[in-house]
């Protein structure tokens, strides 16, 4: 399957992140609580929380995913796709 996240995209993102992390060393940042003043706090926080969130959500999905017709005819989920431009009454 073709992916839009090609090596080029990955390298570009990696470079931006590298520069941003470098700026943290070069000019640094302040914090309000101490821990957030540590170098790379925001870099690590962003990366780790993102990964944790995705794994937590995938675990949650195992518990709560049901077929589309689970709620029967009282729900919109199992209704057929709207005809394109269907709202053009």
């Amino acid at each position, binding site marked *: 399957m073709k992916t*839009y996240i090609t090596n080029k995209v990955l390298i570009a993102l990696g470079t931006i992140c590298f520069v*941003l992390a470098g700026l943290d060393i070069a000019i640094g940042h302040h914090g309000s609580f101490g821990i957030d003043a540590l170098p790379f706090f925001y870099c690590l926080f962003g990366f780790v929380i993102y990964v944790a969130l*995705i794994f937590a959500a995938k675990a949650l999905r195992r518990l709560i995913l049901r077929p589309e017709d689970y709620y029967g005819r*009282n*729900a*919109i989920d199992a209704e057929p796709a709207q005809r*394109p431009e*269907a709202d053009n*009454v």
Partner: protein
Amino acid sequence: MSDLATPALIYFAAALVTPFIRWHIARAIFLLSVPLVALATFAFAQYGAYSNLPFFELHLTLFRLDALSYVFALVFSLAAFLSLLYAWHIRDRLEQVSSLLYAGAAIGAVFAADLVTLFVFWEGTAIASVFLIWARRTEGAYHTGLRYLAIQVGSGLLLLVGIILNYQDTGSIAFEHMELGSLATWLIFLAFGIKCAFPLLNNWLQDAYPAATLTGTVTLSAFTTKLAVYALARGFAGTEILIYIGAAMTLFPVFFAAIENNLRRVLAYSLNNQLGFMVVGIGIGTPLALDGTVAHAFAHVIYKGLLFMSVGAVLYRTGTDKASELGGLWKSMPLTMMFCIVGALSISAFPLFSGFIAKSLIVSASADTGHFIVWLVLLAASVGVLEHAGIKIPYSMFFGHDRGLKVKEAPFHMLLAMGLAAALCILVGVWPQQLYALLPYPVDYAPYTTDHVLTQLQLLFFAGLAFAVLIRTGRYPVELRGVNLDIDWLYRRFLPNLFSRLSSAIRALWQAAARFAAGRTDRALVLLFRAHGPHGLIARAWPTSSMVLWIAVLLGITLVLSYL
């Protein structure tokens, strides 16, 4: 100004006229003029309380113009204009009339200076908005609308009871700051909380918004919940419990949004998360935090509307809003993609976009007041926003898996509405002072400091890097068709099942009891028949002599007893 005047009346009068304009282009132009005319009536007015109306022993004030009501009414007017422009192609008069009534009721509620007027408009938003769902005209939409209406009207009833009790307690119906404590204030708080989609009270939002027509969802997204934010900011600013309620609201929807397949429902979860930030700001209650809440509500109405518009445009062209059916549309809908990405960058709070200059006030206020855990939650929730609204929404529609969909670009009026909304997002982001000048308290805050820009970019880009790595390693969740259970499972599945089981148990019990009673009655009848029937003991013909003998015995016993 006369007694009944409120800008809401302009919407109501227009709603009366609208069905009678036959030519649909004239009707669309007329609709577009309504928010502008209504805006002109209050945009340049002096702050103050107008339209005082004695009503029995109560004192109603329909039109209170101050900094707080001004900002909300302004953004509601903008939202009404943009959503009507977006719905230019709609010919359905039901939907057009209910859009006007809904926007009018929301603006009327914002201007209400007393709780009775607030209640009337509060219920007005509930009743007018349900027709935006029913206008889809499917079985599912009808049932969803009923659920939505029950919950919204329920919120209004709680508000009414709260108002009555509050009047008994204080003798006043003025809508001013309240302290949580009495039953009355708790009921009013709960009524606001339902419309604000507090945790566990939230599911009407995710249930109803994807069920409306594609234009109806754009309209719905602007008013009800932000009206509740306004009401909380007016009535319960500085109420500490709101900090924790808000923090929970920012976090929980994030997980559901990440795995939801219906993109309009993803945005509804995202809306819930954004409301959380505003509620935290209200709970903190310092001038900076309240300014943050108001600024965030303003920015949010525009960028959330923009995101709903972009999903709506894709739905309009492809017929679906499910991520599992979409992808690769960047080639066929490049402008929609561009506007969607502006909305995505705004909601993710990228520097130079509106979310950045609004949300940071709230996050800074949480840090300034020393709420470390809440601050961490808000930061984590910001990563979550980037995940589901910043990345997932544009990625799954315009990139992701190319499904070979061949469609046209969105129609011109939709592009125009999205373009205006996107321009507002950027204008507010680049020149925040314009928005800050409107806020209730003077803003002494500079969003564009090196520190702030750098840390925000680090947070966002490293989260983006995590996304790219997860995609490349195949660990990013694939879009699966299906529904995800949420709290609505309780009233859509569990309670109905419980009731049907209870009723069948009661029926079985009743039948068993009836069988038992019938059996006993039969036996009693048989016994009676044996005794009294034609051949029964009692019915036998007794000789007179034996009767005389028994009487003699009875008299004898009586004689003995009387001598004892």
